[in-house]
């Protein structure tokens, strides 16, 4: 375990020094973060801007802002930790450099998941946390709510990671996976609103088929204390199941890997 932690520190150091060489990209990353938060805020801003609208899907403005905060935070988690690694899996399979990862005396899934880091998008994480803090300051919250939200957000991150890993693992069979992640981003866009803001049939889809609801709505519900025990239990269960399934899928993919030359 400590070996893995030490490796993570090494990996982080290496990618940090590589990225800070390109200072101009920093400006670009800030602009992109501002764009993301702009889209997220405009979406709920216009909804609540209508005369006579106090709630959207039963959520007040500050409660809905919590969901937007979790959405931005997750965008940050994806662009800082998940996407930089996952997008390289397809490339490694195509060029054959996956061989080196598999040969190392280290769990290959850990290797491909932690090697890279996009520090430039840390802004998204900060914006997300800032939105959550701002929204929370206008609501009455309990310490239990905080603890619950933290745990449930952890399972949310696991779910997001598993979806990305599963999509990227398909690279072992299909050379390109970029499109699959595009599709995920499209569906994930729905997570900027509380799931109750959608018509009933869509809600079921967003909860059970693509578990978008668990990623932003459920942690926000935990904070506001409106979470049902069933959902509170379902989220970690879904995360655990997703983790086991993607782990098996990854193992199967690696077993069928025949390197780039053969």
């Amino acid at each position, binding site marked *: 375990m400590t070996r893995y932690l030490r490796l993570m520190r090494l990996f982080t150091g290496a990618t940090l020094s590589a990225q800070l060489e*390109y200072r*101009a*990209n920093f*400006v*670009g*990353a800030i*602009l*992109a973060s*501002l*764009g*993301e938060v*702009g*889209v997220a805020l*405009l*979406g709920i801003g*216009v*909804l609540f*801007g*209508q005369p*006579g*609208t106090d709630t*959207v*899907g039963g959520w007040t403005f500050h409660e809905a802002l919590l969901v937007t905060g979790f959405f931005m935070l997750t965008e940050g988690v994806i662009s800082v930790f998940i996407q930089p690694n996952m997008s390289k899996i397809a490339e490694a399979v195509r060029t054959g450099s996956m061989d080196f990862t598999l040969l190392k005396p280290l769990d290959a899934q850990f290797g491909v998941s932690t090697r890279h880091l996009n520090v430039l998008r840390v802004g998204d994480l900060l914006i997300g946390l800032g939105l959550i803090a701002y929204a929370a300051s206008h609501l009455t919250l309990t310490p239990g709510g905080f603890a619950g939200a933290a745990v449930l957000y952890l399972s949310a991150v696991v779910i997001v990671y598993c979806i990305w890993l599963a999509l990227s693992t398909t690279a072992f069979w299909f050379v390109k996976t970029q*499109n699959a992640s*595009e*599709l995920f*981003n*499209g*569906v994930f*866009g*729905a997570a*900027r*609103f509380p799931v109750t*803001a*959608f*018509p009933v049939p*869509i809600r079921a889809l967003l909860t059970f088929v693509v578990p978008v609801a668990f990623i932003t709505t459920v942690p926000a519900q935990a904070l506001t204390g409106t979470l049902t025990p069933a959902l509170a239990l379902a989220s970690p269960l879904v995360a655990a199941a997703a983790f086991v399934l993607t782990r098996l899928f990854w193992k199967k993919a690696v077993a069928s890997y025949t390197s780039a030359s053969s």
Partner: protein
Amino acid sequence: MTAAWRKLRVLFSTRFAEMVEYRAEVVIWMLSGTLSLVMMLVWMAQAASAPDGKINGYTPAEFASYFLGIWVTGQLLVVWVAWELDVEVRQGTLSPKLLRPLDPMWEHYAAHVAERVVRFPAMLGLVALFAWLAGASFSTDPLHYLAALGLALLGFSARFLYEYTIGLLAFWTESSTSFQELVWLLYAALGGMFAPLAFYPGWVQAVAVWTPFPYMLGLPAQLLAGKASLADAGRGALVLGAWLVVFWFVRLAVWRLGLRKYGAVGA
């Protein structure tokens, strides 16, 4: 004239062949642009739960018509040229293109138009399905469709030109594609992707009417939904035409300055 015509035909047919190769991707790209569909669902649920079943005079079905119109128009306005220019300038693949007796812009333009032809049938199928599921209804006047298509063509050309200009910023900066994201935000917000323009605060509307965005996205959508008149379309076309001229000259100026810079670094 015949030489120009031949160039055009060759350009279009090669780009078309290339885009047909990508047909599976084209469908995925279509499905990944979901913001207007997400907004549609949220507004429909809002209207359904309002006491009189309406928000600002829009019923759920009218929201469906409007946002599906936005979705269709958005499909026709898709432009990715800034990404390609960014790569071409960075990797130097622009250089051989400069030797040809044709502005490289036309090659990109032809690729975009060819992709639209590949996209169109799949788009019609999807919008028919969505319209049936959401209960949307569209204008019955064929002239409205023609006007919407004309506006979309003008809007696409305007968007192509300004995105091309942003892409050319790659001559100077590494982050030209992030400028593109910010401009996309303006396009989406003022174009009416989040809500019909009438839902925005008055001062935003007052600013928006001077920009090309409401006429390229929101107006064609309103025409399709049967909520705008042909006179509106005419006015919109005039504004878009004026912007087209502006973008044309800005693009030309930036292109010339950029080439000088590109040559100066020895590429």
